[in-house]
């Protein structure tokens, strides 16, 4: 049994609106194993970022976690005191964000921003912190670290900024790294380098939760993945199974949209309809309005996650598993 770095159990989160409580995360459960990269895929607004923020305790009022547990290496984060919880961040769990330009303080030198993490969590002097930062810069592939240390964020390119973010996240050698769309704002060549960096980090033992709407990125680096839709996990499998034998109609739709580009067909395959309004979800399966194999029971009952193969679960009545060949 693999060691699990992160276990999320039945996490529910939402926020009150004028129309009542909107549930953004509905019994989300996922696991990240030690030294592995787990992907979390879905369209914009499906709740992936919200999940990340819930783990990082970054959901801002009036949004809040309403139920569920988050376990980091077995430790229940919800039962911790505030200060204890806060000190975990940056040290045991860290996060990198989508847009490195806005995620770094524009009026502070980048070196100082990275130093701050070390100085906060470990008892080191400023000089030692600077040394650690420079080491991390090198490990993250920042060329000429000495010079870059004194740069401001706007003086660095997008790829460099993201490397700085990674250095900042990894400097205290966290057990879990959450990467929220880390390469979306970067161009393809830089993206490849950043993904290589992440693979290297996972090899060294860090568990990574990689969030993306880009299936290509997920396919390249993840060991297994979860597909999210409208705040629920729709399917979960290891990466080969997911891409070769997708079970959920939504996953199938996503993949066929991508492969139609690759195979060059006349019309791009899309999933008809729109992402649902979370405050007005349909009864039954929330994907039913857009599903082409929708049955009567799908419109009446909401399906639960069920296992259809080893390590492969899906939230659908119609899906059938395929045994590993």
């Amino acid at each position: 049994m693999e060691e699990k770095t992160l276990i999320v159990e039945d996490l529910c989160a939402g926020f009150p609106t004028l129309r009542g409580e909107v549930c953004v995360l509905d019994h989300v459960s996922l696991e990240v194993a030690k030294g592995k990269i787990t992907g979390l895929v879905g369209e914009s607004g499906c709740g992936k970022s919200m999940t990340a923020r819930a783990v990082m305790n970054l959901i801002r009022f009036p949004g809040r976690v309403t139920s569920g547990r988050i376990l980091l290496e077995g430790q229940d984060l919800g039962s911790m005191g505030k200060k204890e919880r806060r000190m975990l961040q940056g040290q045991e769990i860290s996060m990198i964000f989508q847009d490195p330009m806005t995620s770094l303080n524009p009026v502070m030198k980048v070196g100082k921003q990275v130093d701050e993490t070390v100085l906060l969590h470990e008892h080191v002097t400023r000089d030692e912190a600077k040394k650690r930062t420079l080491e991390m810069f090198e490990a993250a592939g920042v060329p000429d670290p000495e010079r870059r240390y004194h740069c401001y964020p706007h003086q660095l390119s997008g790829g460099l900024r993201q490397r700085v973010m990674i250095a900042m996240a990894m400097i205290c050698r966290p057990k879990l790294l959450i990467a929220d769309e880390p390469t979306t704002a970067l161009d393809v060549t830089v993206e490849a380098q950043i993904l290589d960096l992440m693979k290297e980090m996972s090899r060294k033992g860090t568990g990574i939760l990689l969030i993306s709407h880009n299936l290509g990125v997920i396919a390249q680096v993840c060991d297994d993945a979860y597909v999210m839709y409208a705040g629920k996990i729709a399917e979960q499998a290891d990466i080969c199974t997911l891409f070769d034998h997708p079970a959920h109609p939504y996953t199938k739709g996503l993949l066929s949209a991508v492969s139609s580009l690759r195979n060059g067909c006349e019309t791009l395959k899309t999933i008809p309809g729109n992402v649902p309004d979370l405050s007005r979800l349909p009864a039954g399966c929330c994907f039913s309005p857009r599903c082409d194999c929708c049955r009567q029971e799908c419109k009446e009952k909401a399906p639960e996650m069920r296992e259809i193969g080893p390590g492969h679960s899906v939230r659908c009545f119609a899906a059938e598993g395929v045994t590993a060949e």
Partner: protein
Amino acid sequence: MLRKKEKQIVAAFEHRAGDEIGEQETFGVLMRRMLRENKLAAVSLLVIILMFLCMALAPMLTSYGETDMDLLNRLQPPSGAHLLGTDEGGRDVLTRLLYGSRVSLMVGIVPTLLSMVLGALLGVVAGYRGGLTDTVIMRLADVVLAFPSMLLAMVIMYTLGGGLFNVFLTLTLMNWGSVARIARSETLRLKESEYVEAARSIGVSGWNIIRRHILPNCLPTLIVLFTLNVPAAILTESSLSFLGLGIQPPSASWGLMVNTGRQYLYNAPWLSFAPSAAIMVAVLSFNFLGDGLRDVLDPRQRKQ
């Protein structure tokens, strides 16, 4: 209320019927929305309307004449007969306040309106034409804006002499600078927009472009600016009159009343307090209204 990201999520999910149909939000619709959502702005609008009513109906609201002196009853504190007391000439303070509102409010509104028109025209022309016209107009605006406001007002009043008309002129000449600057920056922004390019490419003349495309789009910003400049004008006039440089007796303005009341500050504080409070209410109302308008009009602008 909600964080940026959460706002994005909510925005993605919330459908607003108007957006789908592409409903054009007319000024009336916006005003109604503002009044519905922003209680403070609604109350302020009411207060302003009330003030205008007082101004117009002054003779009917009080039984005393504007200059009715009653030397036997000088410096009386507020009482049943005189709701706000009497001043040093025995005149009813409330009456003077009501009649004074005519001057003070008009002095707030008319010159601001005029300076808006002047400033907007100059600013738009400067922004649209560019080049020498732009430089000249902007340097002039810079010069006007460099003076501390009271000192500029004082110098212009000195040159023109005292009296109501000159106060109007002074306030107009003082304020066009900031309007011009804003109008110019809006024009520069709009000049680059696609529909202006399109209009130019089909040969619409400069003037028509300004008239049909640029001015209407500057209008929301200018309206907000107007409501925020009126209180400044009221304050400047009251300060000028307070120093004895603005409205001259026997006409009343709130600022002048404060000045004359100052001599009796310690034994008859209501003489200065009543007009000061009136000034404050006027200033607050216009500020709130301006804020409310800005909330309603500006986000719409950015969407465009």
